[in-house]
């Protein structure tokens, strides 16, 4: 794996992307013992505006804390996809929600599409876990952090009451990743 990996989680405010970023950074930094930085860019509104959460993971001290060229891009809205795909590394991967991102960019990168939010609603009765399923998919596809670490990080960050459903959502993400991989 590269010494420094840059991840961009994008979508709109309220989709839980900042929390997803925190969990990912915690998995890497606290449980996998690497260096990790999470940052975000958001508008003044709490919900609905464009939102981007960035995570940089490295084996060494992290100097520049932001994404320069993302290695992994998650896009949960069309706007976010259009905006951030330009900044995707040549050998980076794109994970997008296939129902929310209908115009898939014409790029040579590895693209993984899945109706994440829809599945969240169907399987768990709530779109709230879209972010955690997404994390499962990303980790399943890339092993950017260990599965064990992300599990622990999810359990640490989500409220006790929501622990079980989030754990399940994460595991579902791992499974989706397996399927997506074999399809490729």
């Amino acid at each position, binding site marked *: 794996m590269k010494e420094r990996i840059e991840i961009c989680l994008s979508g709109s405010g309220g989709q839980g992307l900042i929390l997803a970023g*925190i969990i990912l950074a*915690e998995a890497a930094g606290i449980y996998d013992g690497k260096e*990790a930085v*999470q*940052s975000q860019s958001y508008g003044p509104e709490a919900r609905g505006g464009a939102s981007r959460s960035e995570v940089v993971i490295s084996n060494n001290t*992290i*100097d*520049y*804390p932001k994404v320069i060229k993302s290695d992994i891009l998650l896009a949960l809205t069309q706007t976010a996809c259009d905006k951030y795909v330009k900044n995707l590394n040549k050998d980076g991967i794109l994970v997008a929600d296939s129902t929310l991102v209908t115009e898939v960019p014409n790029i040579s990168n590895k693209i993984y599409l899945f109706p994440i939010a829809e599945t969240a609603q169907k399987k768990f009765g709530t779109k709230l876990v879209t972010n955690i399923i997404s994390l499962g998919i990303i980790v399943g596809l890339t092993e950017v952090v260990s599965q064990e670490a992300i599990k*622990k990080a999810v359990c640490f960050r989500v409220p006790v009451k929501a622990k079980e459903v989030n754990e399940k959502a994460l595991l579902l993400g791992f499974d989706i990743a397996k399927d997506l991989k074999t399809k490729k």
Partner: protein
Amino acid sequence: MNNLKKKKNIKLLQGNEACAEGALLAGVKFFAGYPITPSSEIAENMARKLPKIGGKFIQMEDEIASMAAVIGASIAGLKSLTATSGPGMCLKQENLGFAIINEIPCVVVNAQRGGPSTGLPTKPSQGDMMQARWGTHGDHPIIALAPSTVNEILTLTIKAFNFSEKYRTPVILLLDEVIAHMREKVEIPAPENIEVINRKKPTVPPEEYLPFKPDEDGVPPMANFGEGYRYHITGLIHNYKGLPTSNSQEIDAFIRRLHNKIQKNIKDIIIYEKYSLDDAKIALIAYGSVARAAERTVKLAREEGLKVGLLKLLTIWPFPFEEVNRLAQQVDLIIVPEMNLGQIVLEAERAAQGKCRVVPYGRVDGELINPIEILGKIWEEIRK
């Protein structure tokens, strides 16, 4: 690789959280504030944690009141903190001056966002660097520190309290939105490994106490209100007793002492870090989140065969005049990238005294300067 066990003292902390943690480690017992992005998390953390240790949190009606309450609490004996952003910092200025003239220890955090006015509430800036120095009126010294990592936020918050207690002065901690909101791995030091400085108390009985008579180090011992030392504090220029004076000799000596107590101790106060400067012909001077971009630029530039180094400033005020002057004698070019259109660069230029070229690189669009554009600026200057 780790055994996946969470170490208790290693945490992923947000910059603002780390500031609160640092303050607690330094012994903060009082916080007064007013909600403002992007500093509010400091207040939220304080509201939760202070009462747990018997400390006090209060949300005041505005920033002016917050600054006043912090000064009041400090005089009554508690280490005190307030945190804000640009618009709030403007409002605090008058009472900041009161803290300076009365030598009241306290720490004021400014998580900088774009301005002027409401500006860019959720986006970073370094536009308040000169405000930190000259924001409140009158001729006064100030100490201002600028961390660039979450870990440094923690350690410099402790430093800020220590300086404020040691030198009896308010200390400004300049964050920017990037590091205030960023989360990063922090190893929280054990309390026994931290140096915590407390204000010097009077050793004489109350009837002999002169509240503004300095010791040899220029700093007068400070009695807290309620400890049996009855004395007067006023925003008017005052004599040793703390009473207003219009004696020009006393006035002159007083203002000079305020400056000197800081100036005399710059060796202790000025903190900076050097990256690859030994053989550098081009130097970057940077601080805050931009210093991290600059650090990366140094690596990128070295890969391209350019002898570039970085002087990362952690103390902004007093400005490390001598260090920059020495650097100017060594290098051909100094570039100062900052999220404003030229503030600290002016100071760097002054310190360089014409010994090398000093150029600004500013960005004011609410985005953090990235390493590639600094590298671009280096090439642009080389080709000139």
